[in-house]
């Protein structure tokens, strides 16, 4: 691991593919591109561990209160739109597939397919957000927004809850809004990142030995998908659907 100037692996040397950008990608504290890539990926994993703890707090909150107020929470959960929730799950899963394919084609140097996969991933993210928007609008119509669109008596009349349980329903809905809202924010960040990667790919920024930004962005995207995988049962499938 000598430090006399930049050290390139032989593969990197071979795959300059018409650009000099590869040689300029290696930073001085790294011995070679592979070390740099592994470090970047590891860094993203460590960051994702913090995100696990970040979202974990909300899962803790909703389940602690679920333990305290099972009836109210399950009644509230039932009113959420599980159809859109389910469809959105499938949308995100598909986007995870296209994201990993983007990485796959990066390794193979297939720039066209990389760009298609990155673009479709971003597009599916937007589709997710559109369905979410639709769902949020429906929630507004169904009066599921405490403090803005909510009818206390409806829960007593139609769901058979006691008046003292109605605030607990609000508590559940607050978690729904905060958790899906925070998740949506992460999706937006992911979409932006994917579009940035798409643009860089268009500019021939990457090669089979230098594609770590795509890899790292994909890791983030998969994490956002995993959060939703857990959100679905936690929020939408808490009680028995009739």
């Amino acid at each position, binding site marked *: *691991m*000598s*430090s006399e100037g930049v050290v390139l692996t032989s593969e990197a040397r071979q795959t300059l593919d018409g650009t000099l950008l590869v040689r300029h990608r290696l*930073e*001085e*504290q*790294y011995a070679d591109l592979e*070390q740099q890539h*592994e*470090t970047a990926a*590891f*860094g993203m994993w*460590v*960051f994702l*561990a*913090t*995100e696990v*703890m*970040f979202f*974990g*707090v*909300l899962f*803790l*909150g909703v389940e*602690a*209160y679920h333990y*305290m*107020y099972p009836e109210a929470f399950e009644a509230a959960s039932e009113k959420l739109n599980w159809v859109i929730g389910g469809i959105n799950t499938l949308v995100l899963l598909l986007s995870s597939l296209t994201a990993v394919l983007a990485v796959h084609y990066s390794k193979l140097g297939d720039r066209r397919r990389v760009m298609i996969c990155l673009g479709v991933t971003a597009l599916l993210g937007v589709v997710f957000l559109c369905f979410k928007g639709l769902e949020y609008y429906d929630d507004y119509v169904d009066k599921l927004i*405490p*403090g803005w669109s909510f009818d206390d008596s409806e829960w007593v009349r139609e769901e058979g809850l006691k008046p003292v349980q109605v*605030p*607990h329903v*609000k*508590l559940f809905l*607050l*978690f729904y*809004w*905060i958790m899906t809202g925070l998740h949506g924010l992460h999706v937006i960040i992911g979409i932006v990142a994917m579009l940035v990667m798409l643009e860089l790919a268009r500019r021939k920024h990457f090669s089979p030995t230098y594609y770590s930004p795509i890899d790292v962005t994909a890791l983030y995207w998969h994490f956002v998908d995993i959060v939703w995988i857990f959100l679905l049962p936690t929020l939408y499938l808490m009680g028995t659907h009739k």
Partner: protein
Amino acid sequence: MSSQTLPPPKVIAQPPERVSETYLNIAHGIASWLLTKDHKRIGLMYLMVVTAMFFLGGFAITLVRLNLLTPEGGLVSADTYNRLFTMHGVIMVFFFLVPVIPAVLGNFMLPLMIGAKDLAFPRLNLLSWYLFVTGAGWTLYAMFAGGIDTGWTFYTPYATESSHYNVLMTMLGVVIAGFSSMLTGLNFIVTTHWLRAPGLTWFRLPIFVWTIYATSLIFMLATPVLAMALILVIVERVLGFGIFDPALGGDPVLFQHLFWFYSHPAVYIMILPGMGVASEVIPCFARKKLFGYTFVCYSSFGIACLSFLVWAHHMFVAGISMYAALLFSSLSFLVAVPSAIKVFNWTATLYKGSISYQTPMLFALGFVALFTIGGLTGLFLATLGLDLHVHDTYFIIAHFHFIMVGGMVMAYMSGLHYWWPKMTGRMYSEWWSRLAAMIIFVGFFLTFLPQFIVGYNGMPRRYHMYAPEFQVWNVLSTAGASILGVGYLLPLGYLLFSLRYGKRAGDNPWKATGLEWQTPSPPPKHNFEKTPIVVRDPYQYHLEKAQNEQ
């Protein structure tokens, strides 16, 4: 290096002034600092900010202690008093104690100690600094534009519903600073894993690296929880989404769980790097290998992991279940064990060593003594029956100040004085620094020992007035605080003086082991001319002794 531009010297009485390139003189101008990617410059920039925050936090508590000279208070109103101690707590915890050793000494020393050219992600490091400054600026603005009166613990429902002060702004500042520390921790973890020099296996690393790594683990795993807790309070204040609102069936104690899930490990964020410093300084000034190196390594991890299992010992009287209280009390006893292991190891290192009492050693010895006392009182507090009696009294305040001021700040002083020659290339006045150490030690005892007494006798914390029988001790405590203040101002003087007029330090003024001493003082921008190759275990001071005996 000597073969570059200097003409061959004629007969000289003294070595010529070094004209070599260092990280300090390689580039000039404010932009070269504000846009730097050099971990050493970033460390110095952190030093400036945390020092300023330290004195601001000290200013707040000066007013508090002056107010406490008389039982009826009266210097400031009760309301202002609340805002002053909150300011002191928030600034000292989030903007001094948590970042100081990792962001200043850790940033500077970690790459040097592992033989690397920089951290893994230098731009992220700079971003961390900007986030820290933003958070600090935002919080200071909140403090001076009205303040906040919830205490640094921000308990709900007061913080969410009743306080009409700048809760939102303060919390935003703390959250932003939290992101800063997460990025720093990420950088340190990745760097330690991937950028070690050839031959530098984990069990050849200096203990300072182990403790910074363990600290970074806590940064990563605990800070997100605090960030979310504070964000939920912000959301409640702004949008009325009352997650902790009792009217909705919410539980204010849930906030306490989330807050202390971070804040207890946070105190280990504060002390672990200090322990790392002591583990460097004590072997050096005892000229002896660190005793039980492997135990000290594992105990660093042990402290980091166990620290996450004890948080509810801050909540024994908050309304948690009795069974949970029992569980957390037992776990709290456990966490004392790895700390005690370290104290035994430092003491055993001193035994039969050739001890010299330079300033870094004075501070390190003070650290060990005061940390031990503070830590022992922690065991008292882990005992449920006793904690019920002394919770929310000055006993608690004395306990954590023994550990944080007597422990951590002393360790920081030790590290600062130990590595000052490396960072600046200058030696400070040993006379003045020893004087400062003595003054700090005396001032510290006078300030905080009386607080154990009044606390045990029932004087509650966070009150602007107290029962008349406590006055003598409070006056002593305030007197001590003023001495302590002088002690802390002195280094500001002689350290700054040394920058211009201090004797030039060589590469290794303390004749210490460790890679950071194998490079010039101050180091060049790239740290090492050639990447070092490590073949030996750390702290090989006994080899020198063997050589001397031949």
